[in-house]
């Protein structure tokens, strides 16, 4: 659907919360194909810290036993959309760790469609959003488990932290299962920083921005845990958080 030449409308579920004006300037979005051969591993890091609008569409094919580790730090652009379609063959493993850090009037979107097409594949997705001002952060995650893809293990953990009441988080994990013996867990939560925790940290001498940064650092850490370049990602996220607070 994303590669159609006609600009999508908001009636299309995958574009329901998008910024159509910004998207029209980037349409059509080219498909970026990534194929990971049987038994091998690959990793990719998408870091968007620039100001220009951006829309990407990754199409990832994992052959038998292949592994792919995708990390996303989406923080800079006023409009940033990353769509990821993943097809998993038998025993393949897909890892997504993403952080969206938005402020001002930014619109940030991560849209995933993960298809378990054969038995015993694993997908794990961790998405953490920190949103301030009038920013909109969206995660739409669809998992499809095909008939016969028994032994599938699919996990989605989606959490958003709103720093201002004017910010918006959209989160929609979705499961479509046609197989037996499937482990599928999804958790989704939108919240605010714990006021008690903030006071506790401040009572020890941290300024309010320092206290918030420390708590948010812990919050987004899960998105980058175990990444090949965990430290660089965390540092970049931390710097952006410092600017937001």
């Amino acid at each position: 659907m994303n590669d159609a030449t006609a600009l999508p409308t908001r009636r299309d579920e995958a574009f329901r919360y998008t910024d159509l004006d910004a998207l029209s300037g980037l349409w059509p979005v080219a498909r970026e194909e990534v194929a990971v051969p049987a038994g091998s591993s690959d990793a990719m890091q998408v870091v968007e810290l620039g100001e220009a609008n951006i829309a990407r569409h990754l199409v990832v094919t994992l052959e038998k036993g292949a592994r792919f580790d995708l990390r996303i730090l989406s923080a800079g652009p006023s409009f940033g959309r990353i769509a990821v379609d993943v097809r998993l063959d038998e025993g393949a493993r897909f890892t997504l760790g993403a952080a969206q850090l938005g402020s001002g009037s930014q619109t940030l979107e991560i849209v995933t469609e993960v298809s378990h097409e054969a038995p015993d594949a694993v997908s794990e997705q961790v998405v953490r959003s920190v949103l301030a001002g009038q920013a909109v952060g969206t995660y739409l995650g669809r998992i499809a488990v095909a008939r016969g893809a028994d032994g599938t293990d699919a996990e989605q953990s989606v959490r958003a932290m709103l720093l201002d009441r004017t910010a918006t988080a959209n989160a929609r994990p979705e499961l479509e299962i046609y197989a037996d013996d499937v482990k599928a867990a999804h958790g989704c939560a939108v919240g605010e920083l714990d006021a008690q925790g903030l006071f506790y940290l401040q009572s020890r001498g941290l300024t309010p921005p320092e206290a918030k940064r420390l708590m948010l650092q812990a919050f987004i850490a899960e998105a980058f845990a175990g990444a090949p370049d965990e430290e660089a990602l965390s540092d970049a996220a931390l710097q952006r958080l410092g600017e937001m607070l």
Partner: protein
Amino acid sequence: MLQIDNLTAEIGGKPILKGLSLTVNAGEVHAIMGPNGAGKSTLGYVLGGRPGYEVTGGSVSFDGQDLLQLEPHERAAAGLFLGFQYPVEIPGVSFVQFLREAANAQRKGRGEEPLSGGEFLKLAKEKAALLKLDMDMLKRPVNVGFSGGEKKRAEMVQMGILDPKFAVLDETDSGLDIDALRIVGEGINAIMRQPGKGVLLITHYQRLLDYVKPDYVHVLAAGRIVKTGGPELALQLEEEGYEAVAA
């Protein structure tokens, strides 16, 4: 050093402190005892500057500064430490990172050089040993998975590292077994029983006062200090109860 004058405060429009006056001089330890609901913890939170605790009248002067005008972190930098009755768990934030940042934020606020990683770890190890808290616990997230007693000992380790001029300790003795009570009591003495420092111990029971000998004991009831005496007052309270003594 701490001068509270006719302080009134409320939570959500409900008056809790109703004209509380108290002066603590440098070198003194004061104990505040009183029944549940008297306003003991409210006093601690008001002194610490917790949001939601609204001061409606009176004044608090700390080392010549108007304490109530300062933000919580500025109070800490000025040398005030609040020991929490229920220390807060903060998942994902490591104790050592938090404490080093806190110590250095305070030092920065006072115009001092920050501690290096090595200097800080040496200090933390020393204070953890004083409170007999396993140093490995400080590598874990703040208070997460700590027992009640471990949380209270960790509070005192924090106090040792931050080295405040004045400590308000809110029921630091609750949740402690007999051995831990002695360790915590000795820790408070080692860290705070020094010239130029002051302590306000908020407690229900006399037992902590066996280890940390107060110079003055106050009875807080219905938002005011209703009686003041020496250490013997705590013993009398233990024996006769608040109602008889405060009447």
